[in-house]
């Protein structure tokens, strides 16, 4: 099926980007806009305009609109077929469409009435009308255990073959970290933990540094302190370490 890029009509015609409640709504809109008699629809023209409209409105992926488009094209083709000589037997291929359109139009008339009624009713407040609650989150899904198990089974089936966890050796470099701490303390009496970690430390960097730090503190090479809760951790040169 090829979608025409422009409606085949000499009259300029424009579809406002508004919300249509369905393909019949759009179809009725096209028909009313051009003041076409529902019982005598120029089906070729309307089919082309319908296609152009769903294209323009980006309704292309809405199955219902496509279904209607296909239906219109089918009627268009049927209309082109030569009619039997005995015209009494010829049944207008548009009859079903006309019936559906009239039925829908009737509903729309009721809707118009309902909107007016609801509007009038909304102008008369009951006592203590509670402002409507904002959109509620969808209610919790109720599933039976069986359904849940079935769903789980389906998911398990989707899983790729079992992946055996591979351990990547990432050796801790506590010695290197200890060296860096000592170097930093050689220059200054006190450094903050953060300074030793650099810009983007990896998890192994952090662990290496912490182990080195705890080890150095254990042997009395450095002192650890924190001025206040959650403050920076301060590493101070221990007096006994000066010789090292």
């Amino acid at each position, binding site marked *: 099926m090829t979608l025409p890029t422009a409606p085949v009509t000499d009259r300029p015609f424009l579809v406002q980007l508004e919300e249509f409640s369905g393909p019949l709504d759009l179809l009725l809109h096209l028909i009313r806009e051009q003041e076409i008699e529902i019982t005598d629809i120029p089906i070729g023209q309307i089919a082309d305009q319908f296609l152009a409209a769903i294209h323009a409105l980006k309704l292309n992926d809405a199955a219902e609109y496509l279904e209607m488009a296909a239906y219109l094209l089918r009627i268009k083709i049927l209309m082109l077929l030569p009619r039997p000589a005995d015209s009494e037997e010829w049944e207008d291929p548009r009859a079903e469409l*006309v019936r559906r359109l009239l039925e829908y139009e*009737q509903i729309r*008339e009721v809707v118009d009435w309902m909107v007016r*009624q609801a509007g009038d009713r909304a102008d008369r407040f009951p006592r203590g009308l509670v*402002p409507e609650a904002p959109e509620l989150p969808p209610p919790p899904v109720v599933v039976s255990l069986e359904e849940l198990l079935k769903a789980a089974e389906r998911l398990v089936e989707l899983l790729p073959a079992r992946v055996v966890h591979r351990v990547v050796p990432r050796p801790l470099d506590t010695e290197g970290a200890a060296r860096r701490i000592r170097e930093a303390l050689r220059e200054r009496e006190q450094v903050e933990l953060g300074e030793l970690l650099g810009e983007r430390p990896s998890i192994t960097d952090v662990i290496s540094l912490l182990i080195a730090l705890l080890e150095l503190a254990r042997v009395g090479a450095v002192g650890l302190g924190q001025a206040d809760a959650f403050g920076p951790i301060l590493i101070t040169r221990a007096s006994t370490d000066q010789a090292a």
Partner: protein
Amino acid sequence: MRALTKLLEAALFAAARPVTLDELLGLDPGATEEEVRAALGELQGTYDAGGHGVEVVELAEGFQILTRRECAEAIAQAQLVARPRRLSVAAMETLALIAYRQPVGRGEIEEVRGVAVDGVLRLLQERGLVDVVARGEGLGRPLLYGTTPAFLELLGLRDLKELPRLEDLSVALKPLAEEPAAE
């Protein structure tokens, strides 16, 4: 004002929803239906004649005290209360179909509207405007939907008989239905 009228006024004020005649009868075991109706009439008359801001309205198979239309704009402007959220055209179309064809299944609604209606149906059910009233006969025993008293309240109707009759609409299906008869 009679004692019964006073009682009715208090009950309608307190309930803040349409109260049925049966419920009103429960207020005073000694009162007959006729007396309650007369008292309701008296209350209505008092509000109407006295130039009150509220009136007694018969809707949703009951009676309710509502503010008068002419006061709506000022009340809404002052943001004292909000008007209820309006329903989309899609929701109204579905509601209209259910109102006229109840009990009706999803399939029939979708046939007329030409679109899937699961989402809209759920919304209408959540707002309490429609409910499952029966199960159909055919394949899979489809759920059949009908309107609730909240639907009547939404439109301010006393009962479903107040819906416009299809044959009174400007778009009538009669010409088509008559066609086979003309042959």
